[in-house]
């Protein structure tokens, strides 16, 4: 659906000259001291499959928000290619770009970006309005989306009369109003308190199941990334350090940075038996219960503990390995992985 190829974004006076020069290999602070330029996005490439939830995760300042803005050209990338359904959106003209923004892409913002002088319904209908849709039709559509995100009865309210969570529902509804193919969500729940955040995450999962939209989701919260993401890209200093499923990141971090990141994460919730199954030892009994490798440690805990003999992990009739309560405990307590 989307292919990002070697995208760079350099802020400063002569950004294009940095790329390809030896300066590009300097660290951020060194480069800033030397040339006054800052590399926000450094040679980033990845693909997003249709219907996938692709999460970009990183600490603040890692370039993730710049990256997502580059993808819709709210910030012009310095170099690179971004293909959307085969079309390089960095090459299209202003008019086509607006068309894409109006009909194919939608964005949800951390600070909502609602228009305070418009009612909820007119906020949601804004993009339809600039698409030239008649008032009756766009209000009809807006009411549909209002229902979809659970905002019934709030259409005539003004944004400032709603709580933060409700405001972001308006943000979501506004993004969904034009029935886009891709949703870009830039830390949409970071400004919300934890309980509301959990509700909203569930809401996004529900909407994703219901509508099957492709999503590019930016966050600094690993738990959120794991919960929502089909795949996660971890960014550091503008570059992508690792891309993988949540399981892969937790089980096989590419470097210390990622390892550090995932260290405190409750691994049993992500890791499946495939990752902890080990070769049976010579004298081990191979008659224990059978489990598939795709079950998470968390979900198989009870069976593993209750079995007096090692659990067999089998896939298509093959024995991949065994797991004992001992093995599992070392994962849960964090001494392994």
């Amino acid at each position, binding site marked *: 659906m989307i292919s990002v190829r070697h995208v760079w974004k350099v802020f400063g006076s002569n950004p294009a000259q940095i790329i390809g020069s030896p300066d590009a290999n300097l660290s951020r602070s060194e480069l800033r001291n030397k040339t006054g330029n800052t590399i926000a996005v450094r040679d980033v490439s990845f693909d997003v499959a249709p219907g996938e939830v692709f999460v970009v995760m990183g600490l603040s300042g890692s370039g993730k928000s710049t990256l997502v803005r580059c993808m819709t050209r*709210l910030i012009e990338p310095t170099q690179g290619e971004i293909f959307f359904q085969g079309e390089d959106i960095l090459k299209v003209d202003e008019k086509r770009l607006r068309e894409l*923004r109006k009909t194919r*892409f939608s964005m949800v913002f951390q600070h909502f*970006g609602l228009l*305070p*002088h418009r009612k909820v319904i007119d906020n949601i209908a804004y993009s339809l309005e600039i*698409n030239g849709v008649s008032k009756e039709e766009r209000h009809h559509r807006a009411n549909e989306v209002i229902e979809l995100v659970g905002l019934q009865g709030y259409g005539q309210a003004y944004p400032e009369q709603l709580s933060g969570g409700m405001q972001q529902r308006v943000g979501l509804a506004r993004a969904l109003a034009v029935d886009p193919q891709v949703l870009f969500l830039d830390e949409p729940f970071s400004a919300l308190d934890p309980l509301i955040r959990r509700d909203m995450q569930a809401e996004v999962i529900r909407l994703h199941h219901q509508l099957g939209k492709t999503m590019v989701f930016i966050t600094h919260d690993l738990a959120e990334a794991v919960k929502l993401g089909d795949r996660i890209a971890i960014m550091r200093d503008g570059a992508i350090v690792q891309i993988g499923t949540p399981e892969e990141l937790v089980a096989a971090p590419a470097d210390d940075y990622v390892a550090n990141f995932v260290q405190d994460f409750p691994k049993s919730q992500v890791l499946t038996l495939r990752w902890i199954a080990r070769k049976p030892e010579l004298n081990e009994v191979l008659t224990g219960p059978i489990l598939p490798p795709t079950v998470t440690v968390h979900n198989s805990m009870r069976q593993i503990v209750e079995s007096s003999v090692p659990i067999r992990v089998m896939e298509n009739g093959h024995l991949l390995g065994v797991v004992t309560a001992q093995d599992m405990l070392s994962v849960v307590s964090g001494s392994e992985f």
Partner: protein
Amino acid sequence: MSVAMLSKPEKELKASVVKRYKVGIYLGALSAGFIFFAVLMRGIATLPLDTSSLTWFQSWLNNVSDWIGNNQNSNPFFTFFINVIRDSINAFVTGIQDLISQSIGNNASPLIGWLGIVVLLSFVAYTVANIRVAILVFVGLVSLGLLGFWQESMDTLALTLAAVVLALLIGIPLGICAGLFPRFEKVITPFLDFAQVMPTFVYLTPVTLFFLIGPASATIVTMVYAIPPALRITAVALHEVPWSSVEAAVSMGSTRMQALRKVQLPQAKRTMVVGINQTIMAALSMVTIAALIDAPGLGKVVVTALESLDIGKSFQAGLGIVILAVLLDRTTTAAASKVDAENSHLVSRVRHRQILVAGGIVTIAALLISRIYNWAGNFPGTGVIGSDIARYADDIVNWIQNHFVNVTNSITNGVSYGLINPIQNLLTNSPWFITGFAFVLLAMILGGRKLALISTVCVLGIVGTGLWSDTMTTLASVLVAAIATVAIGIIFGVWIGRSKRADQIMRPMLDAGQVLPAFVYLVPFLGLFGATRFTAIMAAIVYAAPASIKLMADGIAGVPASITEAGIAAGSNKWQMIVKVQLPSARRALALSTNQGIIYVLAMVVVGGLVGAGGLGYLVVAGFTQLNLTGKGLAAGLAIVLLGILLDRITQAAAARSTLERTK
């Protein structure tokens, strides 16, 4: 390397401490040196010039002005450009005057008679503001008529409206550009600063040279003064719109125009209405001063009365200006808060609409009546109440003068002999190169080489105008008034800044004080102290004090709580808190309030030329009235501008310095 890194900030700290310490020594040495040399060489090279004699530069300006006068109707630059502008503006203003103030043709009244105007404006006030303001407008307008100044008030209103409409037509689009394009804003800012720093008085003559005396010139000078606030506040209003909502609109595919129209402008509306308020008040203030170049209206009554020292009449007309100012200010301020109310959706629509329809019908009826019946067309009566007020004012002033002549005289003499004369003697008797050099050194100490260069240019420029001695006379008054203003600013500013209650009581008064046109301040002091420079200085202090006090109060109130708490925790008493904690923390505010104080004072001191304050202001006024002094008046205007730049830049450098020191 790490050693070097560690010691670097320490070195900087030491350097700044030493530097600050040194600046104090330098300034002390400079003052001592200046006084020493000024006294030692007094009387040498003081460049005096009689009022009637001219330098070659001033004669040359006379010739320029003659040339312009002679070629006004033949040179294509005038016939195709200047005169076209003049004629269109004249037509615009005359149109509005025909509508509300001047009788047209054989009709005894303008197109809309007084009753029509009163009802119409009250209705407008109701629609943009609320019923209370509408009643205020009604009462205010009627009392203008009762004062006996109906037509003059409407002339002032017509000129103000014309200038405001034109100023907004130019100011708002440019302000939008400045709000959208930072680069444009950067280019235009120095021009705006300049237009606002310049005493309004000085561009009267140059404008009349090109646009002749009349409504066009009055409108143009008013626009020059009224466009900057309109432009600036529009730009600020756009900056205030949260970027996130603009970004959201763009992400949904809005064009730049759509984002501006549907997202930015609606959110900027409230602040823009505040800008309109500022524009209107600036325009009113300037329209009254434009009376000096024959703009009709209340200002003219004040000028004529001031020139003939008719206190009662000038008080009467001054009261009219105050009423007009209050009406315009209240209406637009209430309109701004109504935009707020609309945004928070408290207005009940249906009832509102019914009242609007009813009001509209009444207004149309009043308009018709005022066309048909003479009593509703021309304001009835002969302004008896106004004359009574004038007489009472005269009586009161006479009474005060009779009973307190010793008091007022001793104040005047005390300040004159104790403060003004010594300073004036010092400055006017000092050789120009000593005083000029002192200025350049001061600039060097406070702002470095660039500022010293600017100061050199200003000093030499003033010498070049041939009016060094008069400039020193004006400077003396400015310094005295500025010292008093800053002292008042500190005392009241500390009081207001430290006490919420004082703030609540004083702030509305200060706001009101800033709204009144500069002119009005001359009237009461003229009554008390007669036509002297002391009157001008007193008026300047009263005019400048509100701005100074407000800046100071904001600075004191803005000292972070953590600092004041630490001071209290350390056991400071009230006096120690003020002197050792709050004033030093508010140093930048002090410098800024000094800067604003001086700019305001300069503007008013030159206006004081009207009431015998001598110096440059007097020459500007003489330039209006005496043909052979036109060039000298122009030169005086130029000298005022140069003096203004000099004082502004140096005090701003002082302000910048205190910011710098605080951030270090």
